[in-house]
């Protein structure tokens, strides 16, 4: 009489060996039946997976040390993904109108399952992302990793930092409370100091001379659609150039 454990593992084996699973998993997947740890399979794990494929099959040994990169670039990207997921959740419960915005955020904290948790994750995750992007930039600077042939990728990285700040800043207005309103007022006032076109820039950002309901809609669209769209393009270039410029920099 087989034990439950044996029966379960037998069924799992059958499942992993089935045609369906076999068709889903590409060669080299560690979940595939009969996976063996071999140099070739180690390559396949990376090559045959759409996500892992961001990585090269092999990386320089010094780049694997946690203390070299602190994983800051990867964590920035991961936080971006987390923010996308939590942000989509929040979009279901939020309308960017002056009448509803504040009440929606309030209801989110009290009347929606996990609403408060997800909102907190979105907010603190955004702050963490600003921090990790900035620290990533500092890490790259201290390693001199912006030097040839990586000059252009540094430029792309600075644009990404700017976009991260813009994403965070445009989201700041959405709760439509006093904190949001006045932080954005102070922030956009700085844009008004730009010579010659300052007032025009400010007007375009705010959809008027000061923060109004139109500003809320504008920031909402920028926040959920425009900036994510742009930042994804720049991230794609950034990651691609990391590979094309020779992978991780160094060793020092």
């Amino acid at each position, binding site marked *: 009489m087989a034990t439950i454990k044996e029966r379960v593992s037998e069924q799992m084996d059958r499942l992993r060996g089935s045609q369906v699973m076999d068709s889903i998993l590409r060669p080299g997947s560690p979940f595939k039946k009969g996976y063996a740890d071999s*140099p070739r399979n180690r*390559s396949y*794990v*990376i090559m045959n997976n759409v996500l*892992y494929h961001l*990585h090269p*099959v*092999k*990386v*320089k*040994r010094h780049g694997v040390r*946690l203390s070299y990169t602190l*994983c800051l670039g*990867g*964590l920035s990207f*991961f936080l971006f993904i*987390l923010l996308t997921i939590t942000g989509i959740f929040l979009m279901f419960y939020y309308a960017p109108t*002056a009448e509803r915005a*504040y009440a929606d955020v*309030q209801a989110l*904290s009290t009347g929606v399952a996990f609403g*408060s*948790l997800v*909102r*907190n*994750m979105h*907010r*603190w995750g955004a*702050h*963490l992302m*600003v921090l990790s992007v900035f620290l990533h930039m*500092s890490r790259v*600077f*201290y390693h*001199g990793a*912006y*030097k*040839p042939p990586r*000059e252009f990728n*540094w430029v792309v990285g*600075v644009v990404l930092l700017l976009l991260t700040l813009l994403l965070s800043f445009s989201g*700041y207005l959405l*709760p*439509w*409370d*006093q*904190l949001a*309103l*006045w*932080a954005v007022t*102070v922030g956009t*006032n*700085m844009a008004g*100091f*730009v*010579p010659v076109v300052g007032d025009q820039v400010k007007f375009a950002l705010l959809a008027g001379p000061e*923060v*109004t309901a139109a500003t809320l809609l504008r920031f909402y669209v920028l926040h959920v659609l425009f900036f994510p769209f742009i930042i994804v393009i720049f991230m794609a270039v950034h990651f691609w150039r990391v590979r094309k410029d020779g992978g991780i*920099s160094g060793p*020092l």
Partner: protein
Amino acid sequence: MAEIPESLLRRSAEAKAKALGVPVEQILAEMRGEAPPTPPPAAAAAQPESSQPESSQPESSQPESTQPESTQPESTQPESVAAASEPAPAEAVPAETAPAQTTPAGAVAVADAPAVPESGNGHSGNGSGRVAATVSPRPVAPPTGAPEGVRTQRLLTVVKAKAIQQVKAEPTDKVNTWPHLMLIEFVALLAITALLLVMSVVIHSPLLEPANVNATPNPSKAPWYFLGLQELLSYFDPQIAGVTVPTIVGLIGFMMIPYVDRNPSTKPSDRKFAIMLYTIFLCGSATLSILGVLFRGRGFNFSYPWRDGVFFDDLKDWVHFE
């Protein structure tokens, strides 16, 4: 005519020697034109030549020649007997159709192809009539295949080593991404997720009173990452602190770093000045931000957080207890 590298010559000689069962040196000498040809082993079909001048060379029964300069018919061909020098009609048989059964000097090769009728009479060489070989009076026998054990190849081209690919990179010490890097990344993702979850459970996001354009809070503060700038604004003219520093220094200056810093070294000991500058920037922006977050109270005047409280609404509900 390209010079045939010694190594190729040797390799081809070895192959031919093996096929014919004679010493390599003999073949080599023959290929260089220093010795008479070796009689073929058996009844290999005699063949006309191939139209590729450099490499063709009948291997078969004829005397042949290794040839040298294509432009000089009468040149050094050793004993090319008969036909050798008969200038062939210019319309040489195209290579593909010409049956070739040659073991040329350079690198060899023979391809067997069905004989075409007209090859019997005019083989030829290229217009200049260099060599060619064979002349068997009888119409060519269509070789259907090479004799047993003889490898047949055709020389396409001789490429000098160099040029196509040059490997510049030194081999480096690498490890497999899976599992060495992926494992670390996975743990890092788990760690940041755990940190974020704990933060989200413990710290509540602020939500103040509804927006009201008529009630300006005191003080009004920007998000923390702009507070360093706001702090600067209280010391300098807006044209400087609000425009020059963020756009000129912050954006354009940072983008230009790789083009301004011409020092090729990445060693910290070689980059003391760059590291010093960046560290000053880091410390400066951290100081300004902390000042702006914690030490600015009503009217954006200096205050002490331990005396007057923290005027920073992001941290208003710092710890959330039910």
